[in-house]
């Protein structure tokens, strides 16, 4: 099968069924055996109107990032879709409703605005849906019917995903949707008989691995469930809310509990309390909520209590850009809060890692008795990828706590100074292991102690312990043939996919360019990073923030200034921008 790499958008007003259509499209493409990377955007304000856009990149190779240009635009509302025209690739297909309920003036219809090379496919969505099912509601399905024919996808695949989605809503709803889909399919089959593009016909013989469509947020929630999370405490905030919603349904079914707290301070307080008592607990928030949590996070650091905190970053500071993406909480995650407060900060780069890193965060929190911050961002949380069902190994699910030896005699020093900095941790209820816990600086027994030597000693213990975690943290992964490189791109979080795509394009051209993925942000593997940098002529660090927060964190490891690509637009960084910068640096 020839290489497929196309981006499909569905655009409409909220209420048009845009997101539903995009979801069905992704499910169908996944079922057809394609890789899918999809990202929806919707208005920031919670009200009944606004533009909704789903964007799906479909291909027969792994999709690392969103593409900049769109090849197919399914317009459920032409006025809204106008804003998407600048993103259309030359010769793109636009599928639109060519029989709106009433005549529209010039400028309101998408054909008025597109370039002449655009392939227009007018389908009377509303009329066909109304005729088929008695209501225009299914017009989004009619549009999908047209799409399926034009691009050569078997209708059974769509019917199957429609069945899956609507069967729970009853036979009537299901039939109405199936009929609306068929109406679009049959119409387009004859209307565009000689114009069918058929570039997505799935190969019949290829074996397909069972794949699941997962968003970053669902992967996190599922990871926590599989890791035997007991209690989830949270307060709704975009983009972390879907984790709360998913767990609210799923966790009680597994015997756990979800509590919506009055705010983020109480959420982190409850997580610490729960983990203090020995049960796995987690919270998820975004920048503004994370800011509220910082004081108690440092309490967890001082009192050496595990906690798992997901910080789903969005545009900031303050309330910022609630529905836009950004990687600007890195400084806050690594350094936020009073005092010298080392903690573990990790950041997945794709949906599968969202699952894996969440599972892992519990063991890390337990073993190193510290809050672990998992940094994601709006784009990673809400993007959908089809991935083989992630599964945590038994090893990964093990209790990470290091308990005191129950047969030990004598007084129990909860904060015993050890070589690793890890002091075996008793949980309440363990007989003969009573201890004092406090946010004050303390001695080995846990009692307050402010002497200069003690504070120095314990500050060092806490740092030693966290640095020791490096042996359990994923090491930076290099994507190159090794040896000296003209340009090395170091990246983290959701931006990494774009960085790798750009680097791979340069590598295909035979250029000496490599990528380094960093997922452990604190502590980080400075020797490995430095080793990579030493082999690079120039080091580029693209990230979604204005200051270059990762560059600030690791830039000093390079012998000269790193080249920063800082994008604070609220939008994922496209591979092309990184590619351009690589070329610019190579030319210089």
């Amino acid at each position: 099968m020839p290489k497929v790499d196309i981006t499909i958008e569905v655009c409409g007003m909220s209420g048009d069924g845009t997101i539903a259509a995009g979801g069905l499209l992704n499910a169908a493409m996944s079922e057809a055996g394609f890789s899918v990377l999809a990202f929806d955007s919707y208005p920031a304000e919670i009200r009944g109107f606004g533009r909704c856009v789903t964007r799906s990149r479909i291909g027969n190779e792994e999709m690392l990032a969103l593409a900049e240009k769109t090849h197919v635009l399914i317009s459920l509302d032409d006025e809204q879709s106008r804003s998407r025209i600048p993103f259309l690739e030359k010769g793109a297909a636009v599928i639109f409703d060519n029989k709106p309920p009433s005549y529209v003036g010039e400028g309101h219809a998408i054909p008025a605005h597109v370039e002449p090379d655009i392939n227009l496919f007018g389908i009377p969505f509303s009329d066909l849906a109304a005729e088929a099912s008695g209501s225009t509601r299914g017009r989004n399905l009619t549009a999908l019917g047209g799409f399926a024919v034009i691009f050569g996808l078997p209708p059974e695949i769509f019917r199957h995903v429609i069945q899956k989605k609507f069967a729970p809503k009853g036979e009537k709803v299901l039939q109405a949707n199936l009929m609306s889909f068929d109406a679009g399919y049959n119409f387009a089959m004859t209307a565009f008989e000689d114009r069918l593009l058929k570039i997505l016909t799935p190969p019949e013989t290829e074996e397909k691995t069972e794949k699941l469509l997962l968003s970053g947020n669902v992967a996190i929630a599922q990871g926590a469930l599989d890791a035997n999370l007991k209690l989830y405490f949270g307060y709704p905030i975009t983009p972390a809310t879907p984790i709360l919603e998913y767990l609210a349904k799923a966790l009680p079914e597994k015997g756990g509990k979800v509590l919506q707290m009055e705010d983020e301070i109480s959420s982190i307080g409850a997580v610490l309390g729960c983990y203090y008592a020995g049960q796995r607990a987690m919270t998820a928030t975004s920048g503004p909520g994370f800011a509220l949590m910082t004081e108690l996070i440092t309490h967890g650091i001082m009192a050496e209590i595990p906690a798992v905190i997901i910080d789903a970053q969005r545009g900031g500071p303050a309330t910022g850009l609630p529905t836009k993406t950004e990687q600007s909480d890195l400084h806050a995650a690594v350094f936020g809060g009073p005092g010298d407060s080392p903690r573990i900060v990790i950041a997945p780069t794709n949906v599968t890692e969202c699952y894996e890193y969440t599972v892992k965060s519990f063991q890390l929190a337990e073993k190193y008795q510290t809050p672990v911050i998992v940094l994601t961002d709006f784009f990673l949380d809400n993007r959908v990828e089809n991935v083989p069902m992630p599964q945590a190994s038994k090893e990964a699910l093990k209790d990470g706590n290091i308990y005191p030896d129950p047969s030990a005699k004598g007084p129990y020093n909860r904060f015993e100074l050890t070589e690793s900095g890890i002091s075996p941790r008793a949980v309440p209820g363990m007989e003969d292991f009573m201890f004092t816990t406090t946010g004050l600086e303390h001695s080995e027994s846990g009692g307050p102690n402010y002497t200069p030597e003690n504070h120095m000693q314990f500050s060092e213990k806490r740092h030693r312990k966290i640095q020791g975690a490096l042996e359990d943290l994923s090491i930076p992964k290099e994507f190159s043939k090794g040896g000296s490189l003209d340009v090395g791109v170091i990246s983290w979080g959701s931006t990494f996919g774009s960085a790798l795509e750009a680097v791979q394009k340069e590598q295909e051209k035979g250029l000496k360019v490599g990528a380094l993925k960093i997922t452990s942000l604190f502590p980080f593997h400075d020797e490995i990073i430095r080793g990579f940098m030493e082999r690079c002529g120039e080091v580029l660090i693209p990230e979604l923030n204005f200051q270059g927060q990762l560059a600030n964190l690791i830039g000093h490891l390079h012998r000269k200034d790193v080249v920063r690509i800082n994008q604070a637009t609220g939008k994922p960084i496209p591979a092309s921008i990184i590619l351009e910068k690589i070329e610019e640096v190579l030319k210089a």
Partner: protein
Amino acid sequence: MSEEHFVVIGNGPAGNQAAQTLKEKAPEARVTLISKEREGYYKPCLLPEYMAGKISEDQIYLSTVDAYKEKGIKLRSGQEVVDVKPRRREIVLDHKEVLRFDGLILAVGGRPRIPEPLLVFRDLMMTLKTLEDAKTWIEKISRVDRVLIIGGDLTSLAVTKALIALGKEVYFMLDENAFWPLRCNDDMFQDVSDRLSKRGVKTFYNCKLNSMAQRSEHAVEVRVGDDIFEAGLIGAFFGLVPNVGFLARSGLPLDRGLLVNETLNTGFEGIYATGDCAQVFHPEIRDYWVSIGHDNAKALGRTAALNLLGERRPVDVATESLFDVQGIKVNTSWWMEF
């Protein structure tokens, strides 16, 4: 939006020339050029050669879609006008969009003519008017050995040449209704028939088409006079007639084509018709004439644009160059040798 909006319907030589002239002479005005075909401006005369594989698709184009942008003309391709409301100065597109205009030039050209007695066989016959038609021919032609051409207009001769070049066996049924846009008489028929025969084409002349029936996917059984044979494809070539059916309810004056005075005006202020779709009044003979041919269309397109911008240029056609075809006065710039 206060600037003037000129709309041209049709991206053939007439419409294309009209739009370019409008933009050239009135650069401040907004010019929209609408065409139901999705391709840019191409030369229909080259379609037979394209069919024969002698030239590539790129060589047919006179102007790519990008060129319009550079010139400041908004090209809307693949969009069909379904109605014109001259009094309200609006046009309606197939997708129900309504466009207002200050000036309008209709240059919608012609469509293949099929004489009444043959209409029953329409689905069995192919025509050649657009690039898309040519692509359909190319797709089908590779699967057949024999092609029957019915009619006898200039396109049919060009297509026959192309088919011979492709190594196809050609049967040709000369039809007395066919020689549009040429005057036809017995001598001429005989001459064409002889020339075709010399090139190995089996011709039928003065014979009656009795029936056609699809026998298999690639074979139609044809009965002409006493002959029965199978043809893989059948092409009908009876010239073009103005393509004005969609204007039936518009209130614009229609006969065979869009009736216009010698300045190409339809009788409605600011609304002109030009090229193959127009039927132009000739004050001297006090009758209307139609134009056929690429060069004519271009010249008429320019005249319509200049007149829309305020000139009152009559189209100058010498009476000697008008000839009669089935009661219609024709002026053609088309010539070819076979």
